[in-house]
């Protein structure tokens, strides 16, 4: 397997701000790759350098083995970029938008129409973009990124501002695209989204990659405690503390929660006592990794 994207030591400054400060990453063919980071971390600039929209101040970037800068018309048909949900021609219907953007790549009309089906907008084909809901516009902008069947797709917070149903629906679409063998690079604020979809993620902050790898591996490496909780009243706090492997115990009158780094003996002991009513076992999530790496302080 070879690499679709190879970036090494990318650098970009805006005035005094080092937006990208030595980012190196590789994305393999067919991979679903996530770039995570707080606002202003440098995600967007990194993506723009890879897409060929900005020139890096330093470092090397190759996409399909070629440099995306200066604008490389041979590379562009192989890349699809999802843009903000407003980047449409005014007053055109969903179908007209897709056909127009498709024609830029020589995609025939009927093929463009099929993409409407892929993103579930067939019944909105004749609706003008101004009348689409946020989720529908989002899906249309993804359809526009995919209309020419690119091998590499960039998605910038595709599910922002979507309701849970629309998000799930979109996840299915993205998984299907990835299964077809397309490489996807995604930025998102939603850690559950990255955890569900991505083969590998990179956590980026202040222009640097803090850590990268498969989400599960990052979570495991965090070494955070697992929390086992059962319904309150099944056993006392003291009894719980005495269980093998138990570290911290709290009881909020609804649930009794035991923190542990070794969940098996705790669960076994609870099972022996018949105290498993309403049991929930929560491990650390990618969100914990993210907060651990980027800090918990609120950022403006």
């Amino acid at each position: 397997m070879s690499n679709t994207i190879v970036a090494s030591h990318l650098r970009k400054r805006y005035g005094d701000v080092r937006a990208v400060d030595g980012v190196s990453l590789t994305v393999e063919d067919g991979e679903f790759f996530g770039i995570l980071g707080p606002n202003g971390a440098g995600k967007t600039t990194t993506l723009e350098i890879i897409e060929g929209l900005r020139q890096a101040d330093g470092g090397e970037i190759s996409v399909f083995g070629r440099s995306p800068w200066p604008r490389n018309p041979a590379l562009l048909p192989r890349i699809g970029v999802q843009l903000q949900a407003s980047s449409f021609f005014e007053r055109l219907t969903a179908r007209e938008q897709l056909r127009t953007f498709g024609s830029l790549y020589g995609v025939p009309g009927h093929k463009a129409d099929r993409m409407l089906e892929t993103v579930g907008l067939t019944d909105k084909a004749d609706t003008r973009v101004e009348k689409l809901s946020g989720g529908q516009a989002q899906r249309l902008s993804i359809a526009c990124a995919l209309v020419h069947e690119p091998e590499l797709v960039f998605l910038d917070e595709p599910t922002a501002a979507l309701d849970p149903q629309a998000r799930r629906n979109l996840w299915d679409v993205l998984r299907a695209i990835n299964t077809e063998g397309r490489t996807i690079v995604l930025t998102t604020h939603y850690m559950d989204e990255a955890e569900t979809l991505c083969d590998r993620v990179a956590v980026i902050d202040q222009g640097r990659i803090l850590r990268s790898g498969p989400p599960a591996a990052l979570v495991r490496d965090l070494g955070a405690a697992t929390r086992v909780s059962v319904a309150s009243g099944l056993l006392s706090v003291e009894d719980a503390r005495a269980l093998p492997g138990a570290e911290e115990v709290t009881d909020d009158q609804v649930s009794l929660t035991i923190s542990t780094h070794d969940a098996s003996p705790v669960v076994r002991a609870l099972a022996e006592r018949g105290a498993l009513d309403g049991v929930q076992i929560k491990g650390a999530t990618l969100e914990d990794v993210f907060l651990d790496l980027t800090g918990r302080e609120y950022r403006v």
Partner: protein
Amino acid sequence: MSSFQSLARAMFLGFRRDRGALFFTIALPLFFLLIIGGLFAKQSTPKSKVLEIGSVGVLDQMPADMRAGFEKSLKITRIADRDAALSKVKKGDYDAALEQNGDQVLIHFSAADQVKSGTAQGQVDGLVQAANQAASGRAPKYTLQAQQVEDKSLKPIQYITPGILGWALASAGMFGASTTLVTWRTKGILRRLRLSPVPIRTLFTARVAVSLGIALVQTALFIGVATLPFFGLELAHYWWMAIPMVLAGVLAFLAIGMLIGAWAKSQEAAQGVTQMVVLPMAFLGGSFFPIDQAPRWLRVVTEIFPLRHLNDGMVKVIARGAGPASVLPEIGVLLAFALVATIIAVRVFRWEQI
């Protein structure tokens, strides 16, 4: 469909579905034409009003064809009472009063309106001469034939139509180009196109083609309405030279609009600056009133406006009947405006918001 065609189609549909744009490019200018043109159409050169006291033989015995010509410039009303007639002339209700005593024709006039009373005097003088000549029983030795060389004093509709059309073309072209470019940038359409393999000039040529098409439709509608009998625009022989004039003019307006759009950061800025250019240009460029009467320095200053040159050229070919070659200088100036503005716009152009 090629990418050029489909981009042009997308832009045209966007325009056709934009009620605001349709109103400002088509309806509002036509409305102006209706009002201003309608006002002037009613107000054709007013006739001198003449009272005929009792019976004036030279008037009443005039041959019918001569009388018809006579009544083109004079409106004759019969009146019996001489004193009443004189007082009406004095008050300015009538321009002159005629009476005949035997062989003497007497004309009473007021000094209040010398032009009209002059017209009346001249006409009556001619009438008396003709009557004398007829009384001599001999055929006239000399005859006069009047032939107009050109229409020096333009009928208002003849310059109102090109003027308002010029203003309509200028505002449609400039607003269209400047706000479109800013919208494309702020909404990310430029980015989307930049990420596609289509050369960027395709986008701009598509936009220019659509604008030229819209301009031709505006022109056709305008000339069509103005030539209706109610308005009475008479097209000169080489009126079709208006087409290259319009195209050259719109290119200049588009280029200036693009320049504003390339520079402006927001929609509001683009609109404001465009308005600041279009409005003075329309007034000083001779769109709403002819600039010929203005002081010389002002006429020189207004040459910085492309609209001035478009209006000049359009009046020449639509109204004055000038030949095709006579507007080549105007076309050249307009194309030069387009070229210079385009060069600056390309230098100022930014792909992205920041």
